């Protein structure tokens, strides 16, 4: 790590502080290890792969690693940044080649795949002995449990909620979304908030990537549908699912409350659409809340839970961003120490808070910084009915959802398949890949 890069990292931090993304106290915390870096001689290197979804995380994670390095003498964490688009491919290629990193930050839905490759180890006994075990939400442990073995630490957790524009709702006279709103309220809001002449749309639906299908599935669950039936067979092509999906697709197909770019709008598309004021609501996890505070300003938006469906049900899918160690890693002890340290209240709080993510530890999540923030309220209120994503049930589903589920969903979006046809084909894909 040469001097120039360290300086630039401080510049990024300073820049974030100047832009209002960091408070002075936070800046000092992140900045501290950079002022007096430790020279570690003889410390065992620990390779930590971090996939970067947004620029500011690089500076934070570097600081985090350095804090850990200063806290002890035996290990030195080296962060390897990988663009998010390449993270999965790079990990799998390196696992296949026998050179995985010691620890990687990955989404929980990949962990099953790694387990299938026999690349991860059972952490259950070690984790049970770890001091913070009981403080982590049981649901969070569930996301990283495959075949009754805990394979990773759930670092931060996410569930889905609806972002909406408080200022424009007032301006256009829309009924503000409430915590217990319904499908009809949702449609009414989206309709009122669609102003084609101003290039504004009520709802930024996602049409690209795995979550396009996940958000749609949440609406199906609100109508009582299930991905797996009681008999363990795929049941996503039920009548309830088809009805709810029809309603959801009609937002784009019939009511035209969504921008025309929906079929190619991925995560960036929906976040930016809202950030630039093109859409007046979208569904996402809390991860984009900090970014919207920059774009839209904190006073102009808020979040609420997803609406109740006709079956008076609702659910929000729960995911975790994990810290996962690999069997073939060279510094497994150091890797575990680093993960356990990152889960300590202070680093855990700073990481989650700065990025607008929800911490997996109860005592941290209960701090007012999370519970009192209107930008996070929708997510916290969704906890009671959040469930672990049903697509985590089979490891083979992770990749297929993306490669086959999404193109099928896009066909349904543009009217080449009916909701029913889509669900039948989709159920077939899922059934074929149960493992």
């Amino acid at each position, binding site marked *: 790590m040469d001097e120039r890069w360290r300086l630039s990292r401080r510049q990024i931090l300073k820049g974030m502080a100047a832009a209002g993304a960091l408070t002075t106290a936070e800046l000092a915390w992140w900045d501290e290890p950079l002022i007096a870096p430790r020279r570690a001689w003889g410390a065992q290197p620990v390779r930590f792969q971090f996939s970067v979804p947004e620029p500011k995380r690089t500076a934070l994670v570097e600081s985090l690693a350095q804090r850990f390095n200063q806290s002890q003498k035996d290990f030195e964490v080296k962060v390897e940044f990988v663009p998010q688009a390449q993270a999965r491919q790079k990990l*799998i290629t390196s696992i296949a080649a026998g050179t995985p990193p010691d620890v990687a930050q990955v989404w929980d839905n990949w962990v099953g795949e790694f387990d299938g490759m026999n690349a991860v180890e059972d952490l259950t006994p070690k984790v049970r002995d770890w001091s913070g075990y009981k403080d982590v939400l049981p649901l969070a442990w569930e996301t990283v449990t495959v075949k009754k073995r805990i394979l990773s630490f759930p670092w931060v957790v996410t569930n889905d909620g609806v972002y909406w524009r408080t200022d424009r709702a007032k301006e256009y006279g829309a009924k503000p979304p409430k915590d217990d709103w319904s499908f009809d309220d949702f449609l009414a809001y989206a309709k009122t908030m669609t102003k084609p002449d101003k290039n504004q749309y009520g709802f930024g639906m996602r*049409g690209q990537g795995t979550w396009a299908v996940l958000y749609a599935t949440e609406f199906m669950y609100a109508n009582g549908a299930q991905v797996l039936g009681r008999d363990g067979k795929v049941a996503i092509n039920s009548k309830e699912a088809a009805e709810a999906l029809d309603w959801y697709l009609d937002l784009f197909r019939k009511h035209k409350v969504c*921008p*025309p770019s929906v079929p*190619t709008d991925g995560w960036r598309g929906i976040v930016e659409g809202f950030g*630039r004021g093109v859409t007046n609501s979208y569904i996402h996890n809390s991860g984009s809340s900090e970014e919207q505070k920059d774009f839209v300003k904190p006073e102009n938006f808020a979040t609420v839970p997803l609406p109740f469906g006709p079956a008076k049900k609702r659910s929000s899918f729960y995911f975790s961003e994990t810290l996962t160690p690999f069997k073939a890693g060279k510094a497994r002890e150091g890797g575990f120490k680093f993960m356990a340290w990152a889960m300590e209240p202070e680093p855990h709080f700073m990481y989650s808070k700065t990025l607008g993510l929800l911490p997996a530890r109860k005592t941290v999540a209960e701090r007012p910084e999370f519970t009192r923030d209107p930008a996070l309220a929708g997510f916290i209120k969704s906890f009671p009915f959040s469930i672990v994503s049903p697509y985590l049930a089979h490891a083979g589903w992770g990749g297929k959802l993306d490669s086959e589920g999404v*193109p099928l969903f896009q066909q349904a979006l*543009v009217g080449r398949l009916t909701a029913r046809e889509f669900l039948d084909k989709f159920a077939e894909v899922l059934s074929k890949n149960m493992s």
Partner: protein
Amino acid sequence: MAREATLARPLARPLLTRRAREVLTGYLYLLPVVIALGATVVVPIVRAIQMSLYRNVLIKPQEYGFIGLGNYARLLDDDVFWLSLWNSFYWVFGSVSLQFLGGFVAALLLHQSFQGRAAVRTLTLLPWIIPGVVVALIWEYLYQPNYGALNDLLARAGLMTDKVAWLSNPSLAMPAVIATNVWRGVPFFAIMLLAGLQAIADELYEAARVDGAGVLERFWHITLPMLRPIIVVATATRIIWTFNYADLIFVMTSGGPANATQITSTYTLLQAYSNLDFGYAATLSVVLLLIMLAFTLLYLRVTRGVEPVA
């Protein structure tokens, strides 16, 4: 060939005959190219053929194993593969035919003498030499529904009321990527045909004029026949190149929406990058190779017939 006659007669008999030395030197000169292409083309192709006979999904190492023609059997059953093949032909035909027409018109224009011809020529040829990613990004930006130039121009001209998401609509996405490829490929044909036009002797036209042939007749009876060999060569090269070319679609749509722009080469990339199914990706690429080889043989047969004209 009569070159042997001019060779110097050796004075004394060296260890190796002159001929043997020549052959040896020749092979020595070829050694670097053999190594370079051996390591980057020959070995990888053999490996690809080998890989295509294995079940080799990186995320399922325990299933790794020889499956003979299993991947090829899967191919026959794969609807997306057949769709991608059809899309490939649509993509190639649409791109090459329009590039050819545009290029022909451009070549005829650039062949005229006018002030500032060199500058115009250079400028119009630019789209051809810039990187594919750059072309893709420029056009992605032009097509952008909210901030793109195209929608704005159409709206200002009163031709459009609702914003059109060019790359998000399955029936528009393919024409949109083809238009991009046409922009990029017109200069190629323009250059080739221009060179051909310049090689036609002016006397031919003069003679035809004296005989009273009009512009169209001269075009039909002199220009076209004289250009025929270069048209065949350029078109064939372009067809092959376009068929193999994945960058543009890969960047602009990744084959979406709903596989509307999925051509065989991008489908191969999808299998390799996204599904990490190297066995199946290798199978797809071997099939691509076979199609190209068949086309090349056909092309060589056709050009053999053309040569006498040149």
